[in-house]
């Protein structure tokens, strides 16, 4: 039975167990003079029984699903004769795929080598047995748990305290998922990066000027050694982010100032949400817009004044990314500008300063740390943005500062290296994880600094 069906079955079973627990708590209550004299309300006894039924079964299911695949795999591979044992990781994966395809009936078993056919049969047997064991074990644990919980219902049982303690632990476990996610991210990018740096030296990666991740499939191929100098990617990422910031920071900041300080409250009431529509548009839509509307327009304009513009220019991607980040900058700036105490405005205006002088010389300096924090967050967003650059920026790693040429970025390379079929331990694939590590470290650093600045600034005026 499939895991989904098992869970559905468990839901039905849980309802049954809950009802049974509720009935029993009433039954035992009869001996002490009614449910009033139980330690807890009958629903608590029922809930406790339900927990006994559901939680161990779910834990078993999770554990089982996490390991059953690898156990079956290793058993199948161990069953192969010594002569047929694969010697490299690639052959291992290939052979396993072949066995799987034969087992699923996608390949003809008669045409396959006899040891593969035998292994496929074993695989089918093991999977069948695995399904039965899982179903049986799952139901047994659920029923046994439910029964145990049901049998323990007594008037003196402190059911409420137990239920509450279990719920508290569950709540805490949910909160811990945030930590587990971070650990998962660090582990997944770090381990693969370490494997990458065993093949390519970190110095070459960080300071090399040549990026061409094509590695040889065979040792005797020409011009396929692969070089992993990531400087062109860093430069391209910075160039596009810089263009985006040139759009987003002035426009976002000025519109925040205008809406906070000048605009009539009615104008503000509809202009602010209208601007925030930009934040809700999915990035793939911006990518489409950049690639099919903005880039040809820039190219056409450039040609009309005699400039040669690449069709995947950094300018198009950067401009559209800037538009995407405008609402991000403006809403953060709006928060800090409105947080500046009114007394500072009044003081400056009373001394005869005009409104713009007040803004430039009093409010802006006071809000500067907060604005800087917001800008840093925006930069980290621009660096990590993927879809716009995947669709509108180039693939070739040019080391250039000319915004009219095509450049590539870290995120574009991660996507192109990992989308499609490739063996998992080639330097090419691992390079994507090394780039991911760089991206994670840089954005994390920016976020921490930005959050620190913003928090410090908030304390100043509270």
């Amino acid at each position, binding site marked *: 039975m499939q895991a989904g069906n098992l869970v559905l079955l468990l839901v039905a079973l849980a309802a049954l167990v809950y009802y049974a627990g509720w009935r029993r708590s009433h039954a035992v209550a009869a001996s002490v003079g009614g449910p009033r004299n139980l330690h807890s309300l009958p629903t608590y006894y029922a809930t406790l029984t339900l927990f006994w039924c559901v939680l161990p079964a779910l834990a078993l299911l999770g554990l089982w699903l996490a390991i059953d695949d690898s156990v079956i795999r290793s058993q199948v591979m161990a069953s192969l004769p010594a002569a047929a044992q694969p010697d490299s990781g690639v052959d291992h994966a290939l052979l396993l795929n072949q066995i799987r395809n034969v087992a699923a009936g996608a390949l003809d078993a008669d045409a396959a080598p006899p040891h593969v056919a035998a292994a496929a049969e074993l695989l089918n047997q093991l999977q069948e047995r695995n399904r039965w064991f899982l179903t049986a074990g799952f139901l047994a644990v659920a029923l046994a748990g439910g029964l145990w919980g049901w049998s323990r219902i007594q008037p003196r049982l402190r059911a409420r305290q137990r239920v509450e303690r279990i719920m508290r632990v569950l709540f805490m476990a949910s909160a811990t998922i945030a930590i587990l996610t971070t650990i998962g991210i660090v582990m*997944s990018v770090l381990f693969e990066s370490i494997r990458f740096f065993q093949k390519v030296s970190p110095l070459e990666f960080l300071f090399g000027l040549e990026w061409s991740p094509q590695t040889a499939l065979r040792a005797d191929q020409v011009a396929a050694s692969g070089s992993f100098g990531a400087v062109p990617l860093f430069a391209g990422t910075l160039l596009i982010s810089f263009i985006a910031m040139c759009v987003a920071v002035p426009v976002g900041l000025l519109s925040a100032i205008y809406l906070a300080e000048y605009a009539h409250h009615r104008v503000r009431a509809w202009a602010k949400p209208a601007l925030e529509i930009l934040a809700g548009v999915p990035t793939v839509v911006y990518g*489409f817009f950049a690639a099919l509307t903005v880039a040809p327009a820039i190219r056409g304009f450039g040609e009309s004044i005699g400039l040669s513009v690449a069709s995947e220019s950094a300018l198009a991607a950067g401009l559209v990314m800037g538009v995407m980040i*405008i609402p991000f900058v403006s809403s953060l700036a709006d928060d800090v500008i409105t947080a500046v105490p009114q007394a500072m405005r009044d003081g400056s205006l009373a001394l005869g300063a005009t409104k713009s*002088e007040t803004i430039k010389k009093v409010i802006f300096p006071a809000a500067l740390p907060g604005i800087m924090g917001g800008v840093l967050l925006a930069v980290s967003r621009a660096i990590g943005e993927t879809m716009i650059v*995947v669709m509108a920026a180039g693939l070739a790693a040019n080391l250039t500062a000319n915004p009219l040429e095509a450049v590539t970025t870290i995120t574009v390379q991660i996507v192109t290296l990992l989308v499609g079929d490739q063996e998992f331990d080639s330097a090419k694939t691992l390079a994507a994880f090394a780039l991911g590590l760089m991206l994670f470290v840089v954005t994390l650093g920016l976020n921490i600094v930005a959050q620190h600045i913003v928090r410090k600034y908030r304390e100043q005026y509270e």
Partner: protein
Amino acid sequence: MSKTTEQVRKTLARRYRAEKRFRAMGMASVLFGLMAVVVLFTDIIGKGHSAFVETYIQLEIRWDQDELYIDDPTDPDELAYADYDALIKNALRERFPSVEGRLEKRNLYKLVSSGAGYTLRDRLAENPQLLGTTETLWLLADDDVDRYLKLGQEAQESARLPEQARAWVDELVQEGSTDTRWNASFFTHGDSREPEQAGVWGAVAGSFFTMLVTLALAFPIGVAAAIYLEEFAPKNRFTDFIEVNINNLAAVPSIIFGLLGLAIFINLFGMPRSVPVVGGLVLTLMTLPTIIISARASIKSVPPSIREAALGLGASRMQVVMHHVLPLALPGMLTGAIIGMAQALGETAPLLMIGMVAFIVDIPGGPLSPATVLPVQIYLWADSPEASFVSMTSAAIMVLLGFLIMMNTLAVVLRKRLERRW
């Protein structure tokens, strides 16, 4: 007049000009942002509206049993594998008897969509008595014909349709044998290499299953985490560490979550690629911080007097939370969850990493069957070389934006309806 006043007077005009300039710059910035919204939407609607209709060609179909090689009309197998394209080819040849030569004929056959044969097959399967009769049918035109007709007089030069075929199409148009109809297949079909047969339904179903998994996991976990952090967590290093993690995860680029999904779910746990369950898991991890942060804000907005009153009447802390705080905070939590879901619905990059970019024609039947999602479908179509896919892409974007607008409106309405001021 004192000297200072004089000095101030002199500079006053300049200062007022600066004031006006600054104000104008602010207004220009706001207008720039609003213009970007308008341009974006008009561009997409302008490109995409034409994809909602498609061209049909009227042809005289002779249901010839010999031509179809059907010996026994009662045998469903024979009906299923008969050569229906031959009927269309015959009809086209009869319609344009002057066409000679292999190449020309091949161009002629290309006027009708390659999927039209299946329409005939389904029609015959339903009405077997048609065999031997002749009837006039509207058949789906090829996307090149469709595009040629949609382009309008002046731009028709750029269409991909061959010169000869243009003459045929013009003739058909003059005789009233072409028609544009509502493109129903766009909303009922899965992906296809042929633009006129491709639809978004497969991607919509994939998005639905992915969102279902995300909602089923992210909402309960997010609410539980928020309750713990707001109501139960002791103030210690561990709690601080959780908070730092949540704040940082909210700002981690989405593609990193894709790398996590690839390394942990697919390579370590051996989950299958391209399935909504894995997509939903990755999006759950990605949206959790958003949901936790908004859920905490709405728990915080429940006044402490309510907690104190319940405690005073003898409720346990868990009872206070489950019976009083949670029901009062739920509308705010739902609003946050809908906004998080809208974010997840538009997300593309992490799903590329876990292989949801495969070309999948079938409509997914559940969270465990291979699928793609709406934004990834947009990405795939945007990459396709056929010009007709540009309008298909824009139309798919309109569908996606439609869903997002619906979700955000729902969130606003919920907030308006259920929000309480204390």
